[in-house]
């Protein structure tokens, strides 16, 4: 998952992210951002996420843990 931070930062339209950054605090945060995260997770990690799961992950670190936990 070495590229995770860079990919998430790109989706969130910032240069870099910290693990405790709150997802909903980003300026660009909306349903399109969530869909982009769902697509990234499916493409790069073969993990299917729902919009509710992404929202419940709360932070960048929470999202990373969520994807890790669903990787086989």
């Amino acid at each position, binding site marked *: 998952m070495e590229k995770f931070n860079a990919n998430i930062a790109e989706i969130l339209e910032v240069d870099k992210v910290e693990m405790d950054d709150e997802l909903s605090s980003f300026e660009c945060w*909306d349903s*399109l951002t969530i*869909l982009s995260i*769902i*697509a990234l997770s499916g493409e790069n990690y073969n993990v299917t996420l*729902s919009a509710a799961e992404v929202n419940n992950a709360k932070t960048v670190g929470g999202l990373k843990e969520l994807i890790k936990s669903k990787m086989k």
Partner: protein
Amino acid sequence: MNLKFYNKSITGILTVLPAKEIKFEDEMENYNFSAAKSLKLKMAMGYNKHRIVEDGVTISDLCIHGLNHLFEKGFLKKEEIDALILVTQSPEYFMPPTSNVIQGKLGLKQDIICMDINQGCAGFEIGLFQAFMLLEQDEINKVVLLNADLLSQKVSKRDRNSNPLIGDAASVTIVKKSEKPNTIFANIKMDGTAFDALIIPAGGFKTPSSSKTAEMVEDAAGNFRSLDNLVMKGDDVFNFVQREVPPMIEQLLEKAKQTKEDVDYYMFHQPNKFMLNKLADKLEIPREKMPSNIVENFGNASGVSIPTAITFNLGEQLTKESSLICLAGFGVGLTWASILMRLEHLSFNEIINY
């Protein structure tokens, strides 16, 4: 479920689009989002303009306009129509079927089968299956397949999830017994446990429309809609399409003993550019073989999106040439279906305005 049909062909496709065109920017103020966010969505999804009927126009208006065009041009004769199949989720009445209404208005013969089918995104495939089966009858030689939907009327103008992508349209497809032998490969699956992934919750017999169902409510993402409006679980639908469609296409090609390269075009349902590009990438199909330009030009008119993609992208070409085409529809139901067939030397393949 794998299906096979023998000795059937499509001889012409006509798409009928409402002339009224609305630009994405003109509706942006209805949405509860900043202009910057909405414009980003426009870029990602390929939204631009869509075709919407004027108030009071119904599906029979579009279908009759299209059929009269074919009668006038000499592409079709009234007495040749042995069956009229109408696939729609915008019927004029709960009873009678709108296909009967169209038969009556056009004065078609009584030796005919009229049939409405309630299907959406896979409506072109389902309609073709029905046409192929009817053509097994000795006395049925020509079937007219109508696909028509006016779902703009059921979408909330304040729903950024659905309003920018929806379009209204109808199509007329002529299906015949083929003069030379052929085999058409197809498959279909359904999952009714996710019946509410795409739904208009009220207005049927279960929840009749009332002042209560007309109340506009804000959802978690900031969209306003009522129970009378179409609602789509965008994330579930996206995941469903990425999960189910690629294996369906692989299986279709395997049964037909064809490779992905053998297929000239992948004419898929047109939900939005984002989803189609992801699908092309996952299937490792060049994006130019899978057009995704219908939503940006006309909007997604449910089962009419594939005929629109064929007439818009391959219009004159298919009247002169022969192409192996893979069709795939996926959505409402949930239903997903695909067909591999050759389209060649069509007598017409065009778009007209209403």
